[in-house]
């Protein structure tokens, strides 16, 4: 299916209003957004210190705010992440804590608060099995937490190495390898060789590896887990790859290498990049636009190269902070969050 052949457009399905400050992040519930007969659910978090849960009605097809998670975080909620089961939502806040909320359908209860970081928590991510969580902070550290019985969370590791504010953490989609990116311009890979919970930094992707020359804001993996995209204040997207078979065989660590840099497309900081299941990379940037990129499938070029599929100017009235493809098959829904206080749902569709 050659996407470049089709005449595609990003159609705004709905604008979700409610937050009273900028919206930093959105996260699709992995289970409800995929299952048949279940309405997709989206979480958004904001500078208004709350998280909103939005649901699409199966009858009217319109989105409404089901519930507001408030009175827990005392400062900006910077990011949120659903556990793989969809039962728990973790929320990372500038107040230095990470909230864990249990999803009871129409209600959410904060069942635990993870403390330990010295200042603002920037990001939280669950591993593929849901057995562990990772958080990161302006305190330059990355913490790994183990999920125990009875709503207990134990700090399993405090990983130091970044020399500045850590902006995002992201577990690999299939393996227990953790990735972090930072204001120090690098991406670090953390791996536990013996599966004993002793994580080490096994790789740092910096300028000498064709890495970024300014703050790296986010990381996203393709479905296969053999490629990732990173985005930066240096106005580029970078594509990295690894020998996934070698990694999965468990023999040793297979390093990530730079495959391709997408430059010249953005003129303001790129805050978010997300890789869809069908290989479309979306980016959200400080120029209020959303851009979509696809592999050009050009065999004459060494290594992969990417083309701009489309650019949605004025996607929002201010910076786009987060873009996330819905995990559902076939519907090509994209959610975006902005400094304009809005969350938007988009559909990638063929022009009529």
């Amino acid at each position: 299916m050659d996407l470049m052949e089709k005449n595609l457009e990003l159609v705004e399905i709905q604008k979700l209003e409610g937050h009273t400050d900028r919206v930093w992040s959105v996260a699709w519930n992995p289970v409800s957004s995929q299952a048949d007969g279940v309405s997709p659910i989206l979480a958004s978090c904001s500078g208004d210190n709350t998280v909103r849960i939005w649901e699409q009605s199966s009858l009217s097809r319109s989105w409404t705010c089901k519930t507001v998670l408030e009175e827990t975080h005392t400062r900006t909620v910077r990011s949120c992440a659903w556990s793989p089961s969809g039962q728990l939502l973790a929320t990372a806040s500038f107040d230095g804590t990470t909230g864990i909320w249990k999803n009871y359908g129409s209600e959410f209860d904060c069942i635990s608060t993870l403390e330990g970081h010295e200042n603002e928590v920037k990001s939280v991510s669950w591993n593929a099995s849901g057995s562990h969580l990772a958080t990161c902070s302006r305190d330059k550290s990355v913490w790994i937490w183990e999920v125990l019985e009875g709503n207990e969370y134990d700090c399993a590791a405090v990983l130091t190495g970044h020399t500045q504010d850590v902006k995002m953490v992201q577990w690999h989609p299939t393996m227990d390898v953790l990735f972090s990116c930072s204001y120090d311009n690098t991406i670090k890979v953390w791996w536990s060789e013996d599966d004993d919970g002793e994580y080490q930094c096994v790789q740092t992707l910096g300028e000498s590896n064709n890495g970024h020359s300014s703050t790296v804001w986010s990381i996203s993996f393709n479905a296969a887990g053999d490629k990732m995209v990173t985005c930066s204040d240096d106005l580029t997207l970078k594509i990295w790859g690894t020998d996934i078979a070698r990694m999965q065989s468990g023999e040793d660590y297979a390093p990530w290498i730079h495959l391709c840099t997408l430059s010249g497309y953005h003129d303001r900081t790129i805050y978010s990049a997300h890789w869809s299941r069908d290989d479309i990379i979306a980016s959200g940037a400080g120029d209020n636009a959303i851009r979509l990129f696809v592999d050009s499938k050009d065999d004459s070029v060494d290594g992969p190269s990417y083309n701009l599929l489309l650019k949605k100017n004025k996607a929002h009235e201010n910076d786009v902070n987060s873009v996330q493809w819905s995990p559902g098959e076939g519907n090509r829904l994209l959610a975006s969050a902005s400094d304009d206080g809005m969350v938007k749902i988009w559909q990638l569709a063929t022009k009529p």
Partner: protein
Amino acid sequence: MRSGEKKMDSVLINENPIIYPKRPRRVRTDQSNTDEFSVDPIDQLEIFDRIRDIRDPEHPKLSLEDLNILTEESVEVDDDKSYVRITFTPTLPHCHLPTPIGLCLLAKLAQSLPARFKVDVRVAPGSHDKEKTVNKQLGDKERVAAGLENPDLVALLNKMMQV
């Protein structure tokens, strides 16, 4: 106080700043546009007027204009592109105060300009040792947002803006 004894209550980095003569303020002469529905493009002077009187953090009786930290030329504006860039010159190349000035400029312009404007604030090239560090901090909106939640910093900025 005996001679030779330091005054412990006022150790300023820049004890004797150069105070620049105030430039006369230009009066807007173009009163020809009487269409109440038209919106004039925002220009350099209008933006400069919003920031010229911000007080220096160390010398609250003096403004950024008095100390030549800002001049009209500090402001670059493109109304069509909704873009503003402010370049400010710290009084000393090694003084440790440029960040509050930069943050105050960002805060003041966020309050004064329509939301459509993108604002970049930077230290004048070559004017400070920590130029790259400060510029990077001022360019990180997440750090700026978190900083602006710090009550001590907010108190200082309010003082500078004489709120």
